[in-house]
């Protein structure tokens, strides 16, 4: 029997090499474990625990009642693109043309995929920080590119360094992918550090793909929009969305803002794969931007209280914790327990029913850490900390 026939007998269906190359998300594994358990406190899902503010939901309901249920323009409704442009101008002073430089997508996830497909040829390299969001390397691989990880470290605030990037640049390097405020570390890049990367991108004529989905969630520091740095609008593909700031994860609305040529290429792929983002989602997103922004401020204030509680709580139980200045994650070191991050997360779930995500899911440099999402009620955070204290006490020193 030939090897091929044996493989065919073993696997009933042919699965592409492309799909086979993707490793299953380390987070998924935990949620499969978790879904059958009772009484679990989850610090796992990176999602606001708030429902979308009512005025936003109400606007979408009204649009459905009125029968606004058709396809929209491929690029997104003109009103929403205009409003996104207005907001980027107001917040960061960057001018985007709503007609040719903005594309509304099905969440930032689609924007990420479109970007990779639009700018990468097979073998092109994308430089990205390690640890970072699980979808980054996969989106590069799906577009037949090669992710090149740059280690980042807690004692350097998990910032990615222009010097480190420069040493990895080859003839195949096509883009630098930044995701700050960072999932999973909560790190925010300082403006001077970003300016160094901007200089590098300018000198080497590289594209910077900046995922700024957590831009509105910063605590005591200001977010710098990469495209707002001198000369950077021409070099930046800016990705943003509504999920995190407006608690709109399920609506799946995001956007890309970039030079017209790139947006045109992305739109071509988008129109053949997605047609357009959902019409009611776009109505909701428009209301989010046009409506009162107090809801965002209130949620950020709430996250900040939880952030202070969880960071202090983790430090108090001996899990030293980097101070996250953005997003809604704490990323404590678990090294003193002697466990690796996957064992820690598995045992913590089994013994104390607290779900956290092993840092190794976000790259090799995430090993020795776990990600705790604090977008959950204070009562749950406090209970989770009590359980973790018991757990750490039991396993101290391995």
């Amino acid at each position: 029997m030939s090897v091929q026939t044996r493989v065919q007998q073993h696997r009933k269906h042919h699965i592409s090499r492309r799909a086979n190359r993707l490793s299953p998300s380390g987070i998924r594994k935990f949620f499969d474990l978790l879904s059958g358990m009772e009484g679990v406190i989850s610090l796992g899902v990176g999602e606001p625990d708030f429902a979308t503010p009512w005025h936003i939901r109400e606007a979408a309901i009204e649009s459905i009642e009125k029968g606004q249920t058709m396809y929209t323009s491929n690029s997104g409704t003109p009103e929403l693109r205009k409003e996104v442009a207005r907001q980027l101008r107001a917040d960061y002073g960057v001018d985007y043309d709503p007609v040719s430089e903005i594309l509304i997508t099905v969440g930032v996830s689609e924007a990420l995929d479109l970007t990779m497909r639009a700018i990468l040829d097979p073998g092109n390299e994308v430089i990205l920080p390690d640890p970072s969001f699980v979808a980054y390397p996969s989106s590069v691989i799906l577009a037949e590119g090669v992710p090149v990880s740059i280690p980042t470290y807690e004692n350097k605030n998990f910032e990615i360094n222009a010097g480190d990037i420069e040493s990895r640049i080859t003839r195949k390097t096509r883009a630098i992918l930044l995701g700050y405020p960072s999932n999973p570390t909560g790190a925010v890049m300082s403006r001077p550090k970003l300016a160094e990367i901007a200089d590098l991108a300018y000198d080497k004529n590289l594209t910077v793909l900046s995922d700024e989905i957590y831009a509105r969630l910063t605590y005591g520091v200001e977010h710098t929009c990469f495209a707002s740095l001198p000369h950077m609008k021409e070099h930046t593909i800016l990705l943003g969305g509504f999920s995190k700031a407006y608690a709109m994860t399920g609506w799946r609305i995001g956007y890309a803002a970039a030079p017209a040529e790139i947006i045109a290429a992305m739109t071509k792929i988008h129109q053949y794969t997605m047609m357009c983002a959902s019409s009611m989602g776009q109505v909701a997103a428009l209301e989010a931007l046009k409506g009162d922004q107090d809801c965002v401020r209130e949620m950020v204030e709430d996250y900040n209280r939880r952030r202070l509680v969880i960071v202090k709580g983790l430090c108090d139980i001996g899990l030293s914790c980097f101070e996250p200045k953005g997003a809604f994650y704490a990323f404590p070191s678990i090294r003193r327990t002697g466990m690796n991050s996957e064992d820690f997360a598995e045992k913590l779930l089994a013994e104390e029913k607290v779900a956290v995500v092993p840092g190794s899911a976000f790259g090799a440099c995430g090993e020795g850490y776990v990600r705790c999402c604090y977008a959950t009620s204070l009562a749950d955070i406090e209970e989770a900390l009590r359980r973790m204290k018991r757990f750490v006490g039991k396993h101290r020193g391995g």
Partner: protein
Amino acid sequence: MLKDILKILENDARARPKQISDMTGMPQTEVTRLIKQAWQDGVILKYKAIVNWDKAENEHVFALIEVKLEPQKDVGFDSIAERIYRFPQARSVYLVSGTYDLFVLVLGKNNHEIANFVSQKLSHIDGVKATNTQFILKRYKEDGEIIEGLEEVKRQPVVL
């Protein structure tokens, strides 16, 4: 800042100074001092529970009473309002613009008790010209809290 503390307490009157200190990053002694000061200054009036009486099997009726006043010689609206809000049945009393002048939320054991309050007490007060009583049939939301029917949304397993 005091405002941060008040926001936390308005949402959860049981929050302890230690918790508030953790939530704000302010030293616990400072939190305790500011709360004490707010209490003394009358910024914090009282720590109370919001009760869903429907579930406590306690016979009760709420009514909203609009009250039209007639200005009295040498007596302002404030003192007429005081004569009304002194009654323990009056849970909330507001001076309002529009057709009526006062808006009184009343709690009684039953319709009869509220009818008595209106006909025997309220309408006898000097300066009260007319009243308009509306019995409350159902309370949906009280002081920012939805009373019932709020279903908890469960998260589904997702990769992100």
